[in-house]
């Protein structure tokens, strides 16, 4: 007990020291933010920065980065919010035994995201895209002892890598059409790409990639499940990163792929549908974190919907909203994390009256929620006004877009109320009576983020001139002027705003009844995407089990049968395909020792097939092997002959060791198997012989062997060509092979050890 107490004290001391040190983890992203801010005026003026190095010259692939206004905006959000999340995580995960691991994953993720948005080469972009997939898998599954977390992590990984594979194919096609993988050249070749017959395929593949990452229908289900991650991760994944990767891709590809009907319609409809579905789902949630997660899906749907258009105001709305959303969503997730930590629950029905004891958190929640709900004078209001203006300007379907936007925003208002009002107002809850205000480390980050939402709302020029307008310009390719202001005058967007507030507040007031109704309705639905996912995974496993049982059922004879049968099929096909050839068979002129070797080989084979006892069969096989070794020796391959002979010897030793345990010669069924095996063996032998004869008909062109013959002495200083090839010309291959040999030995020992233990039990 005493030692345990002492250990605890020491741990506390270390933790305190560690905590101050871990705050340093926020430093790199913070410094990066400052660096990017330094570049901001230049970039806003239209300059771009490009650097990197050639990666695979033959394929025209470079490891290149490219910074323009659009990537700068994303990079700023990623690094700045990354710094705040790091500060928050230090306090949130205080005392967590795997804090270091957490920060390792978080940094991997930040690097992945930054690389993605700054990539100046399509392949570079893809590499970082995959990095974010892997890092998010690790982060979502951080609480790896929880089965839910593991499932969610795997789901996120599978969905996003599935999209990633499609993206890779799409990017390769795009690169081939554009003639280069370099971002600037791809961006400049929009017309050629749109005129290409491959345009449709490229579009579909890129959209699957973007939609899976940004949780659009029908891939929307993984994002709310990703809530299994620790709250700092959710705050980061949902606000600035991960899910915005798809949006970034859409924005980046807008000048290349956009401005077509199919782009506009697909994005608008998918986005609108996603926003609507997510809005309905958000209303059903009682878990604050889940409700927020669904509002993220709403936001992503809205962004996708807007990126379908190419009108200035719509794109401006999308970019402004993207910026606003990152600020308030990160803050709100952090607030929910604080509530969870201090009150012990995130269930809205159990929370209430926290406002008295948690005044700072309450204020922060209000600030962020007002921005999210789009109340003036917050930046969210400007974003929302722009959204309505943009929605009405969408050329294809203004009514649809505007309706979806109003409904989605109304739900967002409701969820804002759920997060910022419900837990803090009302009677204090008696289940958790002694709730205290969170430590500063927890509320400082959301406070700054929420404060920024207010500051930028009051002085929108701060972000407009150097961030948002240049980013819109970068997307549309033409110089744009956008005005962000709080008062737009009495117009339709303002009316829609008032309608939104009314609807949202009404839904908030009738929330419990609405939820009852919705949950009743949904419980009758036959299935949902999540269940469908489970079912398809199960089917996949069934198919895998089926084919494994069919092809690899663990019986050696079966394996060999499958392999020999497949080789026979392939050889037959090859022989038929080759078509015309005349086989010239000459009676060979061999001397006595060569005939003897052949006799030994053939006799050994026949005897092995006919033998009734295992020992005889194995000895016959040995004779066969020696016969083959002799043939090698007689026809000028002494190295191969020696190897063959040694392998035969060792094989005999090994087989002798396991002979008593071999089940091969079990009596009873052997006749049937024997005849089948003999037929298959004879067939294969015949086919191989035929193939060799056919191959010998064609003139032998041997640049490789000629090279080895000529270069062996002057270049590698060795007269034994076989050995020179092994250890010099093809040394890397040999290195791979010896690793295989080594691995095989380890694997065999492991398997045998397993057998041994099982035998003893």
């Amino acid at each position: 007990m005493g030692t345990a107490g002492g250990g605890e004290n020491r741990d506390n001391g270390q933790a305190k020291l560690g905590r101050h040190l871990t705050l340093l983890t926020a430093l790199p992203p913070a410094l990066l933010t400052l660096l990017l801010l330094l570049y901001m005026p230049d970039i806003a003026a239209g300059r771009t920065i490009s650097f990197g190095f050639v990666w695979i010259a033959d394929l025209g692939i470079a490891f290149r980065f490219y910074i323009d206004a659009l990537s700068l905006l994303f990079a700023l959000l990623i690094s700045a919010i990354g710094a705040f999340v790091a500060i928050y995580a230090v306090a949130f995960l205080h005392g967590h035994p795997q804090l270091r691991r957490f920060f390792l994953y978080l940094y991997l993720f930040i690097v992945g995201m930054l690389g993605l948005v700054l990539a100046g080469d399509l392949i570079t972009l893809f590499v970082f895209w995959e990095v974010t997939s892997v890092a998010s898998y690790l982060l979502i599954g951080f609480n790896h002892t929880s089965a839910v977390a593991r499932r969610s992590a795997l789901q996120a990984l599978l969905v996003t890598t599935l999209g990633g594979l499609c993206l890779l194919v799409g990017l390769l096609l795009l690169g081939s059409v554009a003639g280069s993988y370099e971002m600037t050249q791809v961006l400049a070749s929009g017309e050629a790409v749109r005129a290409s017959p491959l345009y449709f395929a490229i579009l579909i593949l890129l959209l699957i990639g973007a939609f899976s990452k940004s949780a659009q229908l029908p891939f929307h289900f993984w994002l709310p499940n990703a809530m299994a991650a620790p709250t700092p991760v959710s705050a980061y994944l949902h606000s600035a990163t991960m899910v915005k990767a798809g949006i970034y891709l859409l924005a980046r590809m807008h000048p290349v792929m956009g401005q077509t009907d199919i782009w506009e319609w697909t994005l608008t409809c998918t986005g609108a549908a996603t926003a609507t579905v997510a809005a309905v789902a958000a209303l059903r949630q009682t878990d604050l974190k889940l409700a927020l997660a669904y509002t993220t899906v709403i936001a992503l749907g809205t962004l996708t919907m807007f990126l379908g258009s190419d009108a200035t105001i719509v794109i401006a709305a999308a970019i402004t909203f993207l910026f606003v959303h990152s600020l308030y969503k990160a803050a709100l997730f952090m607030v929910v994390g604080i509530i969870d930590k201090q009150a012990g629950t995130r269930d809205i029905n159990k929370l209430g009256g926290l406002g008295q004891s948690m005044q700072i958190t309450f204020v922060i929640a209000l600030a962020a929620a007002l921005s999210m709900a789009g109340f003036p004078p917050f930046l969210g209001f400007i974003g929302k006004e722009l959204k309505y203006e943009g929605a009405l300007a969408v050329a294809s379907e203004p009514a649809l877009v505007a309706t979806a936007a109003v409904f989605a925003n109304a739900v967002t208002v409701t969820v804002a109320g759920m997060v910022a009002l419900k837990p803090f107002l009302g009677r204090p809850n008696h289940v958790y009576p002694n709730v205290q205000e969170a430590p500063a480390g927890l509320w400082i980050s959301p406070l700054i983020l929420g404060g920024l939402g207010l500051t930028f709302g009051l002085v929108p020029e701060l972000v407009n001139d150097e961030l948002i307008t240049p980013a819109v310009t970068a997307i549309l390719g033409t110089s744009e002027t956008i005005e962000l202001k709080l008062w737009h005058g009495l117009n339709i967007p303002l009316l829609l705003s008032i309608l939104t507030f009314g609807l949202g507040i009404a839904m908030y007031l009738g929330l419990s009844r609405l939820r009852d109704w919705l949950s009743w309705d949904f419980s009758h639905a036959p299935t949902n995407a999540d269940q469908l996912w489970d079912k398809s995974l199960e089917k996949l496993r069934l198919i895998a089990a089926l084919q494994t049982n069919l092809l690899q059922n663990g019986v050696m004879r079966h394996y060999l049968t499958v392999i020999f049968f497949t080789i026979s099929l392939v050889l037959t096909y090859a022989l038929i395909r080759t078509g015309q050839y005349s086989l010239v068979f000459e009676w060979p002129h061999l001397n006595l020792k060569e005939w003897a070797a052949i006799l030994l080989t053939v006799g050994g084979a026949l005897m092995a097939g006919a033998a009734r006892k295992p020992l005889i069969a194995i000895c016959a096989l040995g004779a066969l092997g020696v016969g083959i070794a002799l043939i090698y020796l007689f026809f000028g391959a002494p190295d191969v002959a020696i190897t063959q002979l040694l392998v035969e010897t060792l094989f005999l030793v090994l087989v002798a060791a396991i002979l008593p345990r071999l089940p091969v010669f079990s009596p009873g069924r052997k006749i049937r198997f024997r005849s089948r095996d003999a037929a298959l063996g004879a067939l294969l032998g015949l086919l191989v012989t035929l193939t060799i004869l056919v191959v010998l008909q064609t003139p032998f062109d041997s640049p490789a062997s000629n090279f080895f013959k000529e270069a062996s002495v002057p270049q590698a200083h060795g007269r034994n060509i076989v050995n020179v090839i092994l250890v010099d010309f093809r040394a890397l291959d040999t290195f791979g092979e010896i690793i295989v040999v080594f691995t095989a030995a380890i694997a065999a020992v492991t398997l045998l050890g397993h057998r041994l233990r099982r035998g003893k039990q």
Partner: protein
Amino acid sequence: MNSLVLQSATRVLVALLLVFSVYMLLRGHNHPGGGFIAGLIAASAFALFAMAWGMEAAQSALRIPPGNLAATGVLIAAFSGVLAVFFEGAPFSGQWLQLTGHKNTGGISISNVLIFDIGVYLVVFGSVLTLIFALEEVK
């Protein structure tokens, strides 16, 4: 197997086989032989020893666990591959240091190629013996 003839012969044969394996390893560059063959010969020597004197005697005669031998071999081969980089060659390319005489006509030279072949030798030697010893335990 408890055979006096085999046991007596083995004492001489094992030593001869091991020396022969080193001989095969070293001559491999110009004549039939090389690390792979030499490793198999060395492994057969210990297999013979194990048959005559028993597995435990063979294991204690080897002194080192054969798995370690194989792992060392992989490391040596990798080291030789990396070595080439320090001599401004591509990884795993042959690098030669001529001590006396002239290349191709004689003299004494050392090279990372031989180091690589020694790695191969150890891997094959160790891996095969690992297998033989493991199978014996099962029995």
